[in-house]
């Protein structure tokens, strides 16, 4: 699966001996154990905000106080955040709409077999992890932003393979970019007509409403972050349209 080269040289060019490698391995493993145990010994902190959120938590539809604040008590702020993300995506959308993140090569890029193996094995795991984080945001740390960020990481990893390209002005891309804001605004309109106030959830229905908004927000956040990457990762020769006005200092003597 991985093409492991035998490149075991140190900084001066000599080969590392086996006891040195074992020592380095033990040291790295000890650092790893320290990092994990640090996270495990953390105890519950009692902050003042938690005292206000805790009594209202059963009426919010979720069990995680962070998700309750983000998507129920302060859902208007999250709506504006999604809108700002969409504005950022429109602002960095490349002028050359049909572009590729790097040159598409033939299937099976033999120059980077480790990358191919890694991406092939990691992509499904990352997608499942993102779905898990999205679902468990109601009960444990997680939520839409975390799932969207991890899904964007998987998308960027797939784009490293250079065997796929992205058409930015396709209908699918535009739909995925806008679906978060559209679903959020639709939910706001529905709650206005059914409950009398914008983004006012009934405690019995708040659970699935928050889940619907989170699913759309995850898709939008991941696509917008991948769009940020794609807009920067294209070579300058691909975007001949914006090369003229992009860098004003390139013509100074």
């Amino acid at each position: 699966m991985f093409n492991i080269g035998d490149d075991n040289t140190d900084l001066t060019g000599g080969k590392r001996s086996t006891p040195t490698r074992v020592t380095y391995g033990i040291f790295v493993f000890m650092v790893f154990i320290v990092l994990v145990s640090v996270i495990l010994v953390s105890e519950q902190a009692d902050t003042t905000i938690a005292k206000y959120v805790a009594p209202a938590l059963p009426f919010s539809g979720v069990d995680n106080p962070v998700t309750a604040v983000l998507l129920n008590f302060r859902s208007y702020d999250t709506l504006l955040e999604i809108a700002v993300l969409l504005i950022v995506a429109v602002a960095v959308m490349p002028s050359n709409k049909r572009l590729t993140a790097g040159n598409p090569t033939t299937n099976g890029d033999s120059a980077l077999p480790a990358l191919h193996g890694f991406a092939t094995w990691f992509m499904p795991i990352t997608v499942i992890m993102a779905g898990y984080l999205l679902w468990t945001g109601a009960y444990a740390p997680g939520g839409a932003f975390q799932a969207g960020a991890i899904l964007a990481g998987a998308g960027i990893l797939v784009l490293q393979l250079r065997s796929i390209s992205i058409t930015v002005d396709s209908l699918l891309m535009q739909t995925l970019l806008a679906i978060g804001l559209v679903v959020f605004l639709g939910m706001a309109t529905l709650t206005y007509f059914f409950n009398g106030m914008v983004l006012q959830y009934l405690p019995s229905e708040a659970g699935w409403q928050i889940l619907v908004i989170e699913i759309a927000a995850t898709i939008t956040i991941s696509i917008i972050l991948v769009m940020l990457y794609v807009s920067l990762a294209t070579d300058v020769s691909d975007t001949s349209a914006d090369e003229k006005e992009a860098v004003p200092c390139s013509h100074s003597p």
Partner: protein
Amino acid sequence: MVVELGIDMVFAVGLLTVAITCLLAEDVFKSIVLFVCIGLLTAIIWARLNAWDVAIAEAAIGSGLTGCLLMITLRRLAQIPTTASSVRRGSKHV
């Protein structure tokens, strides 16, 4: 109690050290790599402060995605044709 204080001091001093090294590095590429390390240390500190959602978001977006965007920005900066040859990977004096 003392062990926890020691671990927190290690993380605080380490984060400050990595941040200062990131600012003083003579290579832009080195600064970006140290920026990713800052993101990782900050994620662990968020976990120490019991803010788990922020830790996940910091590890994914703050260090991973921002580091990736900085790298490809650096690559794109090197591709823009300029008269001065200093806009290339390595120099901080653009």
